[in-house]
C-alpha cells in the first residue's frame, strides 16, 4: 500500500469491472505455474499442458456441437423436432474413445508418479517439522549434518495490520531460510508437532503434508540457484496463512561456506544455561522471544483471545510460583495450540520469555533463571 491506497483500489475496481489486465504496475499478473526450478516441476508443467490441450480440443468439439445446435436447431428458425433417441454405434464410440484418451493420459503420468516417489540415494536429508505456526529444519544426513534451526515469518505485524507499507516479499519472508546446494538431490522428511501442516515449494513441484506422529518423505533437486518461496497449504489454525517456506539454493562452494558459518554461529549463540542473568537482561531478551513465538496467540497486549488463547495479563499461572509456569511452557498443554516449547527453545530463551511475561502488563512476579528451567527438564 504505497500511500495511494484509494487510487490503487479504484484502479483495481476498474480492472475488475472491465476484466482488464493489471491493477498495479508493481506486480505482473501471475496466472500460470511459477517458473520451474527443478526437473519435476518442469515435468508437472509439461503434463499439465499436454492434458490442457487435450481438454481444450474436446471442450471445443463438444460445445461446438451444442452451440451449433443452439444456432441451427432453434424453434424460432422453424426447425422441426426430430424424434430419434438412441443410436448404438454412436453410444459405443463415445464410450470407447474417451477410454482410449484416458489411457493416453495415464501412460506418461504413471512414469512421473513413480519418479516422484523415488526418494532413494539422496545427497542431503533434511527433517522439516511443522509447528503452529513456524517451520523447524534439522539437517540430519549429508553435508551440514547437525544444523538445526527454526524458521518464522519475518514480515512485521505492522505490515499485516496495515500500519506500514507492505514489502516486496510480504508474507513470503522468514528469519532463517532453508539453504540447499544446487544440483543435489535433497530428501525432505516431513512431520509435525501439533496439527497437520503442509510443506510446499511450487518452483520445485514438491508438496508434502506434515503429519504429527508420522514421517513422510519427498525429494527435490533444484537446478538453478536463487530464492524460492512457498506457503503452508494445510489449514493448521489461526495463523495458517502466516508460516511461509523459503529455500535459498546456492552453489556448492557457497553451501560449504554457509555450513561452516552456520555451525560457528550455532556454537556462538548457544547459551550457557549456568549463567545468571539480571532481570532487565532477561526481560529484554524475553521480549524478542515473545515477539517471534507467543504474540500471535497471546497478543502484544498480553490479553490473548479467550477462551482459545488465554490472557497472560493477570493470569494466575504467570503470577504464581515460577515452577508452574516453567512446566507449562516446557511441556505445553495437550489438545491446545500451546505446544511443548521445551523442544523448540533453549533454557535461556524460556527463562527470558517467562521473566518477560512475569514483569509485563501489570504482572509483578519474580524472575526465572535458566538454571531453574534446566532443572525442570525431564
Amino acid at each position, binding site marked *: 500500500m504505497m500511500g495511494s491506497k484509494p487510487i490503487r483500489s479504484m484502479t483495481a475496481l476498474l480492472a475488475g469491472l472491465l476484466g482488464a489486465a493489471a491493477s498495479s504496475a508493481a506486480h505482473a499478473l501471475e496466472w500460470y505455474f511459477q517458473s520451474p526450478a527443478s526437473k519435476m516441476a518442469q515435468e508437472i508443467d509439461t503434463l499439465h499442458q499436454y492434458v490442457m490441450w487435450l481438454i481444450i480440443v474436446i471442450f471445443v468439439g463438444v460445445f461446438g456441437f451444442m452451440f451449433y445446435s443452439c444456432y441451427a436447431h432453434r*424453434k424460432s428458425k422453424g426447425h422441426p423436432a426430430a424424434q*430419434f433417441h438412441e443410436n448404438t454405434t454412436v453410444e459405443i464410440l*463415445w464410450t470407447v474413445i474417451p477410454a482410449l484418451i484416458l489411457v493416453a493420459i495415464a501412460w506418461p503420468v504413471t512414469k512421473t508418479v513413480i519418479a516422484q516417489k523415488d526418494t532413494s540415494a539422496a545427497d542431503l536429508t533434511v527433517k522439516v517439522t511443522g509447528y503452529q505456526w513456524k517451520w523447524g529444519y534439522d539437517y540430519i544426513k549429508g553435508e551440514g549434518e547437525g544444523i538445526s534451526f527454526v524458521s518464522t515469518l519475518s514480515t512485521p505485524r505492522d505490515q*499485516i495490520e496495515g500500519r506500514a507499507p507492505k514489502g516486496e516479499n510480504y508474507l513470503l519472508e522468514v528469519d532463517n531460510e532453508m539453504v540447499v546446494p544446487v544440483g543435489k538431490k535433497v530428501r525432505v522428511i516431513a512431520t509435525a508437532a501439533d496439527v497437520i501442516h503442509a510443506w510446499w515449494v511450487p518452483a520445485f513441484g514438491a508438496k508434502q503434508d506434515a503429519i504429527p506422529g508420522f514421517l513422510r518423505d519427498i525429494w527435490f533437486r533444484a537446478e538453478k540457484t536463487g530464492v524460492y518461496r512457498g506457503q503452508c*497449504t494445510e489449514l493448521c*489454525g489461526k495463523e495458517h496463512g502466516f508460516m511461509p517456506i523459503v529455500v535459498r539454493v546456492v552453489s556448492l562452494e557457497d553451501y560449504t561456506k554457509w555450513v561452516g558459518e552456520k555451525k560457528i554461529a550455532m556454537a556462538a549463540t548457544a547459551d550457557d544455561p549456568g549463567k545468571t542473568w539480571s532481570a532487565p537482561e532477561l526481560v529484554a531478551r524475553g521480549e524478542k522471544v515473545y515477539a517471534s513465538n507467543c504474540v500471535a496467540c497471546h497478543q502484544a497486549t498480553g490479553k490473548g483471545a479467550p477462551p482459545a488463547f488465554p490472557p497472560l495479563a493477570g493470569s494466575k499461572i504467570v503470577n504464581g510460583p515460577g515452577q508452574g509456569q516453567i512446566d507449562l511452557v516446557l511441556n505445553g498443554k495437550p489438545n491446545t495450540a500451546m505446544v511443548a516449547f521445551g523442544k523448540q527453545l533453549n533454557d535461556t530463551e524460556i527463562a527470558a520469555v517467562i521473566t518477560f511475561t512475569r514483569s509485563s502488563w501489570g504482572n509483578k512476579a519474580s524472575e526465572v533463571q535458566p538454571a531453574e528451567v534446566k532443572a525442570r527438564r525431564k
Partner: protein
Amino acid sequence: MSSVAHDHAHDHAHDHGHGHHGGYGGIMRWITTTNHKDIGTLYLWFAFIMFMVGGAMAMVIRAELFSPGLQIVDPDFFNQMTTLHGLIMVFGAIMPVFVGFANWQIPMMIGAPDMAFARLNNWSFWLLPFAALLLVGSLFVPGGAPGVGWTLYAPLTVQMGIGMDLTIFAVHILGMSSILGSINIITTILNLRAPGMTLMRMPLFVWTWLITAYLLVAAMPVLAGAVTMTLTDRHFGTTFFNAAGGGDPVLYQHIFWFFGHPEVYIIALPGFGVISQVIPAFSRKPLFGYASMVYATSAIAILSFIVWAHHMYTVGMPVTGQLFFMYATTLIAIPTGVKVFNWVATMWKGSLTFETPMLFALGFLFMFTLGGFTGLVLALVPVDIQLHDTYYVVAHFHYVMVAGALFAAFAGIYFWLPKWTGRMYNEKLGQIHFWLTMIFFNMIFFVQHFVGMAGMPRRIPDYPLMFETWNKISSLGAFGMGLTQLLFLYIVVKCIRSGETAPQKPWEGADSLEWTHLPTPVPYHTFETPPVLK
C-alpha cells in the same frame, strides 16, 4: 408457495378437500403437515434461507480477501466463516433444495398419492432447523464456531472450543434427516409407482434420486462415525486420530472422504436428473440414450466409493495407492462424458427455445463440464501435488457445486414454479437473473484457477501481493452474485403473488405425468386413484 396452490385447489371439482392440512391452519399447518407438497415447500424455503446465510458468510470471506493485509476480520473468525460457509452450503442449502424437489416431484412423476412414510417425512424436515440452529449458534458460544474447514480434519478439531461439539451434533442430526428422507424416497419409488410405471419408464429425475438415496444411506453413517470418533477423541480420552495414543490423523481423512466423495455425487446426481427433464422439454425431443443415462448414473454412483483417496495425494501414501486412486478417478470421466454427450445429442436436431430453465440448464452443461475437466486435471497425481489445497481446487469444486448443483436447482425451480404455484414467473427477469448469475459466477471463480496455479493456498485470510488483482476481481464478482440472488427472491415472490395464470402445460415439450395428467396449479392431493398409463 403451496398456500396459493391450495387456494386454487378448491376450484377443481374433482378435489373434495377432504383431509386438508389435518385440520390445522396457520403455523400449525406447517408444523404438523404430512403432505408431500407442503413438506417440499418447507424444504425449498429452508434451503433458500440457508443459501442466503451461507452466502452472507462468503461475502465476509471475499470482503477480507479484497486486499492483502488483515482489514475486516481476524484470522480466527475468517476460519470460522470458511468452515460454516462450507457446511451450511453443502448440508443446509444444496442437499435440502433437492430433497424439496424430490418431495414435490417424485409422487407426481410416478403417479403416487404422497410419500410412503408421511409422518417420517414431516420429521425428516423438522430435524433440519434444529441442526441449523446448532451450526449458526456455534458462532455465539465461547471460542466461536470451529475454524477447521468443512472437512473437520483431525487433530485440529481437538483444539477447538464447544462450538466444535455443537457442529458435531449438527452433523449427526443432518445425517439422521438425510437417512430418514432417503428411506422414504427409496420406499416411495419402489412401492408406490402407478400401474404401468415400470422402472425403465420413470422420468430420469426419479432415477437419479433413487440412486442418490442409496448413496445417502451408505455414506451418511460413515460421516457420523468420523465425527463421533472426533467427539470421543475430544472428551473421552480416545486416540483414534492421535499418534501419541496409537491412532492416525490420516485415518480421519480416509473415513471422511469415504463419505465425502459419494457426497459429491449426492449433490450432483439430482441436478443431473433435473437437467435431464429440462433439456428434452425445451428441445421438444425425447431424452437421448435414456437407458445409457440410467447405467451411467449407476456407474458413477459405484465408482464414487472407490476414489476417495484422490483428495489425499499429498498425505504420502504408497505409489501403488496413488496409481490405483488415479486410475479409478479418471474412469469417472467415461460415464460423466456419456451423460454430457447424451444431453448434447438430445438438443441435436430438436426444436429449441431458450426460456429461463433452459438457459440455466445450458449454463449448467457448459460450466459443469468445465468443472469436470479441471477434475480430470486434479485426478493426475503429479499435477494434483502442485495444485492440492490451492485456489485451483476452490475454483474446481465451485464449478461443480455452484455451476453444477445450484444452476440445476435454479433450472428446476423456474421449470416447476408454474406447476407448483399456478402462476408464471416474469420471463424477462428470469433471464436477467440467469445472465447476471452466469457473469458474476465466472468473475468469482474463473480467475481463481489462475491465482491457484500461481501458488495461492486456500483458507488463508491474507496473501502475498502478487495475488491481489485476481482476488479483487473475484471479490467484486462475489458481491455482484450475492446481490443478484435478491433479484431471484423478488422473482419468486412476485410469481407467487401476482404472476400470470399458468396453463396446465406451459412448456410445450414437457411430457411427465405432472404436466400431462394434473391441472395447474396442482391440487393439494393428487393421484388419490392411480393414473392410467398406456
